[in-house]
């Protein structure tokens, strides 16, 4: 009797979770199917009508997107912003994280506490002053400007994460390396970086997604020729209905990259996002 009841309960749980799963999947399916339909079809009927008339589906929107110079430029801009912003954050944070963990310099504790305090500083407060600063330096409206802003606001979390990870390394290991006469640089590249690989991977994935998905920073700091996909798409959202043939495939392209990263590096991804949620 109890087993029957448990079986029934489990059936209900399964059904409930299946429904939730469908609810989660449906909006994405809607976006994908909409990206394969013409503007006229989208204006007159819902994407679910493709199940009864699959003739509506075609890759025309995607081939048009490939020929759309603004869109392809924006895609490459996204890459040109995300990759350097990720590499720079990882390199600078690894250097600083090692110094905070194992090197001695005056004010080390106090400066690191400041970095911890900066973890939650909202990006918004930097927009206006940095825009002025970049204006004077000639960085406003350029890709390097966008990259530097992302690096600066990515650093507190990155330094925090790597410093804590490096600090867990056994002291004997470092002392042995120093005894052998290795320079700090050698120890850093040959010992610390390899040992820190899991944390660095999580950090790199988190930072890459953060920058790839950003719209706010680029909205202000990028101009027409340096804007990434998110800003390019955002500029077309005002005429949502008539631009759906660009918006739907564009949004799909912009989300396919991070989703592929997600499935390729599930564990690092989840760890990175979990650790980064303090931001």
């Amino acid at each position: 009797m109890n087993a029957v009841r448990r079986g029934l309960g489990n059936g209900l749980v399964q059904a409930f979770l299946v429904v939730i799963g469908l609810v989660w999947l449906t909006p994405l399916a809607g976006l994908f199917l909409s990206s394969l339909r013409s503007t006229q079809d989208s204006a007159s009927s819902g994407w679910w009508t493709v199940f009864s008339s699959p003739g509506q589906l075609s890759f025309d929107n995607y081939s048009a997107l490939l020929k759309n110079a603004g869109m392809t430029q924006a895609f490459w801009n996204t890459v040109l912003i995300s990759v350097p912003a990720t590499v720079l954050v990882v390199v600078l944070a690894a250097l600083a994280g090692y110094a905070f963990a194992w090197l001695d310099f005056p004010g080390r504790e106090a400066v690191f506490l400041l970095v911890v305090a900066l973890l939650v500083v909202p990006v918004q407060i930097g927009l206006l002053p940095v825009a002025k600063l970049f204006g004077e330096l000639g960085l406003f409206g350029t890709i390097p400007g966008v990259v530097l802003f992302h690096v600066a606001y990515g650093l507190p979390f990155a330094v925090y994460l790597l410093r804590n990870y490096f600090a867990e390394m056994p002291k004997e290991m470092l002392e042995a390396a120093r005894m052998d006469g290795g320079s700090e640089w050698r120890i850093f590249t040959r010992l610390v970086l390899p040992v820190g690989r899991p944390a660095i991977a999580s950090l790199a994935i988190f930072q890459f997604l953060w920058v790839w998905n950003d719209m706010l920073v680029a909205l202000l700091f990028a101009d027409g020729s340096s804007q990434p996909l998110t800003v390019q798409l955002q500029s077309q959202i005002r005429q949502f209905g008539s631009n759906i043939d660009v918006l739907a495939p564009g949004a799909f392209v912009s989300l396919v990259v991070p989703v592929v990263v997600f499935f390729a590096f599930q564990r690092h991804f989840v760890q990175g996002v979990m650790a980064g949620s303090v931001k």
Partner: protein
Amino acid sequence: MTATLVKETSPPVLGAVERARRSRRRARFIALLFVFPALLLLGALVVYPVLFSIGRSFFDASGTRFVGGENYTEMFRDPATLKAVRNTAIWVVVAPALLTGLGLILAVLVEKVRWATAFKLLLFMPMAVSFLAAGIVFRLAYDEDPNKGVLNAAVVGVHDAFTGTSEYPTARAREGQGLKAGADGSYRTSGGVSPGESVTLGLVGVAPKDLPGGAQPAYAAAGRKAAPDEVRGVVYLDFTPGGGGKQGKVDRRESGLPEMKVEAVRDDGTTAAHATTASDGSFRFTGLKSGSYAVELPGSNFAEPYQGVSWLGPMLVTPAIIGAYLWIWTGFAMVLIGAGLAALPRDALEAARMDGANEWQIFRRITVPLLAPVLTVVFVTLVINVMKVFDLVYIIAPGPVQEDATVLATQMWLVSFGGGNNQGLGSALGVLLLLLVVPAMVVNVRRFRRSQR
């Protein structure tokens, strides 16, 4: 002797001290080289801007006149900014609580199925998607037209499944042809009808192309005689395609109106019989007691089709955007709580099960209290994130509704850059955002210092 001894030994000692000092200085120099690039960027692009914004928030729009706290009082006087403060408060009260609750329920339930990993992956995936892409996804889903927006399609589908659809929202009766309109949109015969009689109920206002498929001409049915205990009739479209025909008469080519609900109503207003018209518009009420009845076409025949919910209208736009936010963050809450769940002491749960506690009691009395620290972390993390929400609101709220959906981050943007051009007030809003996360900042620093002891 001593002098010579000192003299003899001192150079090497001094040299060692000097060398040690020099190597320490060198080590410090190297350490500074390691931290310098990061600190330079943090100083120039994070610390300096924070100080600048705090200072700037005490000056007017152009930045020339010191106004003290005026920008901060303005924040609560300007209706648009006040709206942003209110909406952010709604976000903070609603979203983290819903997410933590939903995450907890799903984390507990998902452990009971074999495909838990696949489910977690699916729900976590939106965390990889940009707010912009999610915004476009939900602009599509929330479309007001039930033929285009999947959410309204579902709502209308459910609504119509319970109340039925009306076939003839545009149909009406001609003046003075035997039908009078009721206040509820119904039509009723003006004279009484007794069993054994037939009626013809002519309507207009239906375009021939809108007639239901399979509608047949009503002429033959209109001629049939009623038996002594029944009332017969036809409901027809009193319009002859191509002209001709006579008003108030069933002409040869005029079509019946199928699927129309008809009722026979007694004098006291109670319903004696129901019928639905056939494909030629005919209906009949059988087994009527003698007396006088009115034949009524209930208002539901003519109801406007249900159009669903205006998700992105001024009333519902904030809840709708919070819905999109749930789609993104539920997986996060579920996975984090799930990790906490996996770390719970098994024996406490087992002991409770042995004592005969049911699943609900275990959940309520053991799981939730033991999970409290994890739930707090999830909740606080979400509060911090929710206060800074920008992209979703900016993307999902359509232009005219933007001001109903505005939150602190979008308002700060609009005031500073999006036409407002008041950088004094903009800076003050930025500082307010910073002040709101200061408690989190303090908690982070404290927690770190404790972990170092």
